[in-house]
């Protein structure tokens, strides 16, 4: 498989960087496959909606953005990543293993006594995990503290944090956001997973957080919006976030819960499930076809998991962007970040 050959933190162009983007897409398929295997073989319920929805963001971070050394996880100059939505741990584990932070054999003991892979991130047990999280609303503030330390030391490294939109119901998120704005934490870049749902269901009309971008801007942040499944768009918005100086930046990443696994995308209840043998086979078939699509592609857009031509089922034929737009009435798609 092709290795990283582009300089880190550069914008990806769908034509120029076609091979590189295809490589990222293949990694995303591998990560999804690993998540499915993790849940199936451990016989543990996983929240596949949240896990599948964040794959591209974390894959991009670990394969094109973060300056980290899997062979030396404690390298002092590394970029830091904090998974504030700690329930996404299995996705992060899959990416960390794919990146070489630990051996895949550890998945055999996933969430079992003595395992390095706990239910939620544990910085003392898992190589590559920077902060212990799992109680929502804390990771962002921890990332803020790291960014403050980096700012005081004028450090060359940066702090990245993935926050959930449901997590934005926590008051501590806004407390941290306000402080980060006041402290002008320019070393901090946050990705906000905007999938429109919290655990119990859609947020609209219940525990809504809109207008989300305006709120963060009002708190002193530079805000951008991206398609959270499009490596090129994500990289372009992250690159703009990188250029921000003297204030924290945030990319609202519009995503689809369950992305890449049609029956999970359309699951009527919260997809916190134990996969049946049939569902397991379906997941693997879908991912297998997605991989074939990517390999034969020439166009890296849209994402292979939403192949436009010969999708595995009528549901998954919905092109990515159209599907997202339909689900996200408030999203302006290519809208520019106003705070940058």
């Amino acid at each position, binding site marked *: 498989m092709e290795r990283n050959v582009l300089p880190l933190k550069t914008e990806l162009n769908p034509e120029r960087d076609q091979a590189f983007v295809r490589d990222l897409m293949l990694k995303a398929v591998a990560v999804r496959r690993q998540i499915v295997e993790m849940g199936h073989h451990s016989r543990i319920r996983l929240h596949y909606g949240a896990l599948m929805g964040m794959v591209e963001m974390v894959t991009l971070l670990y394969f094109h953005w973060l300056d980290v050394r899997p062979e030396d996880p404690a390298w002092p100059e590394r970029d830091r990543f904090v998974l504030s939505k700690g329930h996404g741990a299995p996705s992060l584990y899959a990416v960390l293993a794919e990146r070489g932070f630990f051996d895949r054999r550890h998945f055999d003991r996933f969430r079992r006594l003595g395992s390095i892979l706990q239910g939620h991130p544990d910085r003392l047990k898992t190589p590559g995990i920077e902060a212990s999280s799992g*109680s929502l609303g*804390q990771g962002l*503030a921890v990332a803020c503290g*790291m960014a403050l*330390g980096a700012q005081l030391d004028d450090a060359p490294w940066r702090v990245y944090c993935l926050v959930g939109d449901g997590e934005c119901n926590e008051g*501590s998120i806004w407390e941290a956001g306000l402080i980060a704005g006041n402290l002008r934490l320019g070393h901090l870049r946050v990705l906000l997973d905007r999938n429109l749902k919290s655990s119990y269901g859609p947020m609209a009309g219940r525990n809504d957080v809109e207008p989300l971008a305006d709120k963060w801007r009002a708190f002193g942040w530079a805000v951008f919006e991206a398609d959270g499944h499009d490596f090129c768009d994500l990289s372009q918005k992250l690159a703009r976030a990188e250029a921000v100086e003297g204030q924290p930046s945030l990319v609202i990443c519009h995503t689809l819960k369950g992305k890449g696994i049609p029956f999970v995308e359309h699951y009527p209840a919260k997809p916190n499930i134990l996969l049946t043998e049939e569902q397991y086979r379906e997941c693997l078939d879908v991912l297998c076809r997605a991989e074939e699509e990517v390999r034969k592609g020439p166009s890296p857009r849209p994402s292979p998991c939403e192949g436009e031509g010969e999708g595995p089922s009528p549901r998954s034929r919905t092109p990515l962007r159209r599907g997202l737009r339909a689900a996200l009435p408030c999203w302006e798609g290519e809208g520019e970040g106003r705070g940058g």
Partner: protein
Amino acid sequence: MGEVKDVTAAYSEALVEVGLADPRVMALDADLPDSCMTEPFYRACPGRAIDLGVAEQSLPTFAAGLALVGKVPFYNTFAVFAVGRSFDMIRLSVAYARANVKIVGHAAGLSLGYAGPSHHALEDVAMMRALPGMVVLQPADAEECRQMVWWMKDYAGPVYLRLTRARVPDVHAAGWRFEMGRTEQLREGCDVTLYTTGDLWVQALRVAERLAGEGIGVQVVNVSTLKPLPPGEIVRHAQATRCGTTMEDHHVVGGLGSAVAEVYAEFVPERALRRLGIRDTFTESDDYDVLRAHYGLADEDVVTAVHSLLGSS
């Protein structure tokens, strides 16, 4: 006994000392640098003191982030908020993560008497003792406080330092060294042991003199490390006397009384123990000393407890 001193002022001076000695040291506040006497640190170590504003629940998490990138943050606010407001943050982001955060709970116990029960910190030790790996300290005097701050700076792990507003004389002579996890006998006696934390040793010594007049031998023990408290540290005092009494400016549930009772129950069950402190009630407003006496820490309460234990009441 020496000159009467403000323990918080001693903390303030020590924080500046360790800040000047070690560039990793930082101070975080939540809009109370005046009450917590951290202002001198802001002047001595500019750039390393951050006031987050009225944001107590962000103190542990911001401090954890700083600690994870190599800083040694001491965060300061009233104990009732330092621990109570942000317990979940302390539990996960500090204790579970073993972040090198120093939590300083100011004006603990009934210190903020007139402010009333919203500001009385009477559960903080119970909560902090319940967390695996948390070190819980409460100094007996200014010198012990100063040495604790130096110890905290060099210790790699989470610590809770509990400070009250009490003004106390020095009990520790020059050359004395603080040892984390050790108890300290302040007075010998063979009938009853009074275990105290914080400034309550002053009262214990006073009562001991009074009881000595009745022919009762009172041993006074300062327990400044509330966790970890090795059983042997209590057992050796327990076995030297017939019975024991704990005295604390905290609920008797979960604090010093519980810590000592746990050792008595497991290791010296033949010895009787009484616990003096606030007894499972929400308090009311009044003067600090008035409240202490009202809620079970009057000299008379100690005398009564000892008489009861010795069957001589």
